[in-house]
């Protein structure tokens, strides 16, 4: 028979009534709380009993304080005189129990209780939630920067979409927590002014477990979205590393607490351990990621033309120069530079470099992006990203929309114009495709249609 049970309990730090009721129920089922550590509540089996639990707050103590402090000792002593035994503490929250039904309630003045809770929350709950909000905001800004560099590339990666989802979700949950606290404080003040007690916290536990389930769900979807086993392993390794760091940092703090280390020293050491382990984790991830990329390097042949050495790759690319004009190049390198697909769009960057054996002969090459926009509402935004890609350069050309004859394939066509002269750079819109193309020759409209047809078949 299991004698010890560890549970992760989801309570708001100010939900004293919820904690009390929960512990009374657990005792009635034969489980007595013995410790709270790392957010894990440890219960010991006992005979089911009717035990009273009461929670109070010491605003001046901290999670980094030694296990025994003068303040805690004093509170324990007062409670002992009143018939209450200390069970555990969680930040400023102090939990006591009593089997004496006549023992005086630990809190006999609701306004004093509310004031102690308010001071405690200012120190822990508010600070941690506001910091969390800042972390999410910084992450949000990072994502926005990445998006602005190349919106199409950004939106074509599920990892980015999931990161946005997690950030938005995190901000929402944190804001709900903060707003709920403000609501609770105001409601409690009103109830106390009317002679009542602090307000009850309702619906938080299902909300917290629901939120946790959503985050886990998103992570599982993310893991299954990986196409490569190595990437899955890297992600799982990083996740395991993150949990290991959280465990080690908390363990360090708890060991110091138990050894009676001073609060400031505990904070400094915990912070240093946190930073060092975070650097180690990031370095390991970077090393593993780089190694993965290097190990995955594509095979190539070497082609020498005069005193130049070229790498010849044979990737499968959607359109080759040979598909458009009547040529047969013996030495051409076909490279897929990027190929990503998310639920919103598919994005590929390809190029063909053709090399002649004779240095005086020039073979045609081309460089192109193919974007398949799955979500219609993103089409104009992606197109705008391409049309404005050179706006930041003052002396660069701009894309002009070109009139085309009635084409069943091309919807819109833009061509790059430098000081009144057109270059061999186009943006072709066709159905849900956006193609950016740079070629060594001026493509005819028929060649462009062939290009689109070939690209749409293979994308």
């Amino acid at each position, binding site marked *: 028979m299991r004698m010890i049970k560890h549970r992760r309990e989801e309570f708001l730090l100010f939900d004293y009534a919820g904690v009390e009721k929960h512990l009374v129920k657990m005792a009635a089922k034969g489980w007595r709380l013995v410790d709270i550590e790392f957010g894990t509540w440890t219960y010991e089996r006992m005979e089911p009993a009717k035990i009273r639990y*009461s929670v*109070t*707050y*010491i*605003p*001046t103590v901290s999670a980094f304080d030694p296990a025994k402090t003068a303040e805690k*000792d*004093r*509170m324990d*002593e*007062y*409670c002992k*005189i*009143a018939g*209450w035994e200390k069970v555990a503490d969680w930040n400023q929250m*102090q939990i006591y129990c009593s089997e004496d039904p006549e023992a*005086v*309630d*630990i*809190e*006999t*003045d609701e*306004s*004093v*209780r509310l*004031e*102690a809770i308010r001071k405690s929350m200012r120190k822990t709950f508010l600070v941690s939630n506001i910091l969390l909000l800042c972390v999410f905001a910084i992450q949000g800004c990072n994502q926005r920067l990445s998006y602005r560099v190349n919106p199409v590339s950004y939106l074509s990666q599920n990892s980015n979409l999931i990161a946005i989802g997690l950030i938005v979700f995190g901000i929402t949950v944190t804001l709900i927590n903060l707003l709920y606290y403000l609501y609770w404080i105001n409601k409690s003040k009103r109830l106390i002014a009317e002679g009542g007690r602090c307000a009850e916290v309702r619906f938080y536990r299902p909300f917290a477990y629901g939120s946790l389930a959503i985050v886990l769900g998103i992570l599982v979807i993310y893991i299954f979205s990986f196409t490569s086993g190595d990437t899955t392993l890297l992600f799982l390794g990083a996740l395991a590393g993150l949990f290991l760091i959280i465990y080690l940092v908390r363990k360090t703090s708890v060991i110091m607490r138990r050894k009676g280390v001073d609060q400031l020293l505990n904070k400094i050491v915990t912070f240093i351990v946190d930073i060092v382990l975070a650097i180690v984790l990031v370095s390991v991830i970077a090393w593993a990621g780089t190694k993965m990329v290097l190990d995955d390097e594509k095979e190539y042949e070497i082609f020498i033309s005069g005193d130049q050495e070229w790498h010849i790759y044979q990737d499968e690319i959607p359109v080759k120069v040979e598909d458009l004009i009547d040529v047969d190049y013996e030495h051409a390198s076909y490279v897929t530079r990027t190929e990503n697909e998310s639920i919103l769009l598919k994005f590929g960057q390809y190029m063909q470099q053709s090399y002649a054996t004779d240095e005086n002969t020039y073979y045609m090459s081309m460089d192109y992006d193919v974007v398949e926009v799955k979500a219609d509402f993103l089409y104009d935004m992606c197109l705008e990203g391409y049309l404005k890609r050179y706006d930041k350069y003052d002396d660069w050309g701009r894309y002009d929309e070109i009139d085309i004859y009635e084409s069943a394939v091309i919807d819109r066509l833009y061509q790059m114009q430098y000081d009144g002269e057109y270059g061999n750079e186009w943006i072709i819109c066709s159905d849900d495709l956006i193609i950016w193309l740079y070629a060594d020759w001026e493509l005819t409209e028929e060649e462009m249609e062939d290009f689109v047809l070939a690209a749409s078949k293979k994308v």
Partner: protein
Amino acid sequence: MPREKFHTLTEPMFYILLCLRKECCGMDIMGQVEKLTSGRVKVGPGTLYNLLEQFLSAGMIEETKVEGRRRSYILTHKGNSMLEDEFKRLKTLVSDYQMLTGEEESV
């Protein structure tokens, strides 16, 4: 407008301050209040602890001695005048009641 802190005292506040007119150990206050009020007013340990901290930081009481876990306190001049103000306020309430109802001895 928010009410000034300790402008009016709750019963636990009033009786704790009353007990501290003479130097008294924090641990003994709960028993003293209960005895003083014949069990009508009970001060819980959490309420006592937090009120003593609040009174200390408001300068209404001061610590007189520390013997192990036992800490003794006494009312300061400020605390005493706040207690007197509360007493006067309560007396005004009683007197207003008596004036309107004509009941003098029964209250």
